[in-house]
């Protein structure tokens, strides 16, 4: 954390990658920091602007194929996100943003497109669109409750030895091999699209704690009510 104790949240390219509720992750992080008395400053970085290196938590969201390719090109050219992550910033990469972090991903016609190489993963276009609720049990070392959310993508993602799976899917498709998402250092990637942190406040707290250290508990009754309703409904359908 910087000495002025303002948490800097950087939202990367909302003009290209914020197709469906991605702003929710920004708002949830802001709320959970502020309710603990921590000031926040949020920077919306448009795709024509440089990515600042001084952020604490970086967020990148989902989007259509063409904007995804543009975003990958610009991030690679810019280099700011690489430098921020190298210096210990946290990053949550969602859906199209998750795929971009790897070595390659599938373009509009399924052609391989270069990613930006921040995670040891490789994605390609899968056989069918994965659309629906997703439930997954998180890797035990992270000590997080069950992941819940919605996925909507056509990607299949293979994890290399440089990352660990974030979770094992109970319902839904995720990476396509029984796992969902991945993490390495302070970087988390997931197919839980849009406002993933609204359904998983503990994941929001994990990102916050990487920058802020141990966190005071919050009244999470609104989050819990939604989580329990969703998990009960979705697991009943399986």
């Amino acid at each position: 954390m910087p000495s002025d104790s303002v948490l800097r949240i950087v939202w990367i390219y909302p003009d290209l990658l914020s197709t469906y509720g991605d702003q929710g992750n920004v708002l949830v992080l802001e709320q959970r920091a502020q309710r603990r008395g921590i000031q926040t400053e949020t920077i919306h970085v448009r795709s024509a602007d440089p990515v600042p290196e001084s952020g604490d938590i970086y967020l990148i969201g989902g989007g259509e194929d063409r904007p995804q390719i543009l975003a990958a090109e610009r991030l690679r050219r810019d280099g700011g996100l690489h430098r921020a992550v190298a210096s210990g910033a946290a990053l949550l990469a969602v859906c199209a943003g998750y795929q971009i972090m790897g070595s390659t991903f599938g373009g509009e016609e399924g052609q391989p497109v270069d990613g930006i190489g921040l995670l040891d993963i490789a994605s390609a276009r899968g056989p069918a669109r994965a659309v629906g609720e997703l439930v997954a049990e998180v890797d035990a070392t992270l000590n997080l409750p069950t992941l819940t959310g919605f996925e909507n993508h056509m990607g299949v993602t293979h994890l290399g030895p440089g990352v660990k799976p974030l979770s094992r899917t109970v319902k839904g498709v995720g990476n396509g091999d029984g796992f969902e998402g991945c993490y390495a250092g302070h970087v988390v990637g997931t197919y839980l699209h849009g406002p993933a942190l609204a359904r998983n406040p503990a994941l929001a707290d994990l990102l916050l704690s990487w920058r802020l250290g141990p966190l005071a508990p919050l009244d999470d009754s609104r989050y819990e009510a939604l989580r329990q309703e969703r998990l009960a409904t979705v697991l009943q359908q399986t």
Partner: protein
Amino acid sequence: MTQLPLRAQLASALGRSAATLSRMTGRGDGSVIGGRVGLLLEPDLLRKLAHDRRLALVSATNGKTTTTRLITSALLELGEVATNAFGANMPAGHVSALAQHKTAPYGVLEVDEKYLPEVLDTTGAGVVCLMNLSRDQMDRAAEIWLLAQKWRRALSGKPTHVIANCDDPLVTWGASTAAKVTWVAGGQRWKEDSWCCPECGGPLDRKDAFWACRECTFHRPEPQWALDDEMAVDPRGQRWLLDIQLPGLANRSNAVMALAVAEAFGVPVERALPHLREVTSVAGRYTTVERDGRHARLLLAKNPAGWLEAFDVADPQLPIILSVNAQGPDGRDTSWLWDVDYRILRGRPVFVTGERRLDLALRLDVADVPFTLCNTFTEALAMQSPGRVDVIANYTAFQQIRSEFGRAV
């Protein structure tokens, strides 16, 4: 109209019977089942029913049903008009609408954005009206950049006259392959889906209503028609006070689009506008229902852009009931709630209901908007003091409320 071939006659007659049966048994308003039956018997029925009529197709993310209604009311000046007034906006609904008005020389068809290329190909409609494109029900709807691309392909090489909103960059891009375009400055409140150039992906610069790409030549075309607050400005520069009864800026924009379409059919503003002013509600939208002295005005909002428009209409002095579902037609994914800025509701008494009220509750909590959670709409209404209240609901939540009041129109 020329006589339909025998098989098509039979198909449309059986379709109409199925529709009547559906209405009589209370299963629906018949606009889909009738068309399905007809198409089953004669797959080419839509083409045959459309033949020899002058048709306008109306498509957008928001405002399709209302604009279809406004255009229809204006074209009634010319004669009988076939239309799918209840929003059954896929080919079965179009078949049903045209079959029910066999002799109507005119047709105004609301068309689902995805189906526009197919319906344009099949019907050969002479006029297409395109208002806006924004994020909508991503789990089942197409991605909008892709959608605009398909519009471009469908319009290319056809003689269609397109009336399009040039304040929406994606609509402009989608329409600009057409042989003839009348541009309407219809405004654009929701801008979150058009910060990038649809042509090259570069940043779009905006100054007042004008927009242009910083990296290529794509820019806002010069409009022939414009909405200027309460006024419509026609291609001759003449200004017309709209004075329509439908509330809000979005409906004034829809009205200007309707005037431009009417003129394309040869109905001048002075004859079209009085008909637009007669429209007070559209398939339950903007209607007021009453129970025990509580007068609830019903507003439909299906996506973030629609919520912005509903907030523009809602009275800040009144309490407000919000109802959200996530059934198939709503989209099963409620992520879009996070794209709506609910902070405008701070200070109003807010009541939250619907099948996905817990999603909305968390969303409002994060936006620091206090609210009361209600299990049902009935409960939310009963909690009001006698008097007026606004209701914003998404699609199936809206239909549920409507049906509680005898399918209010």
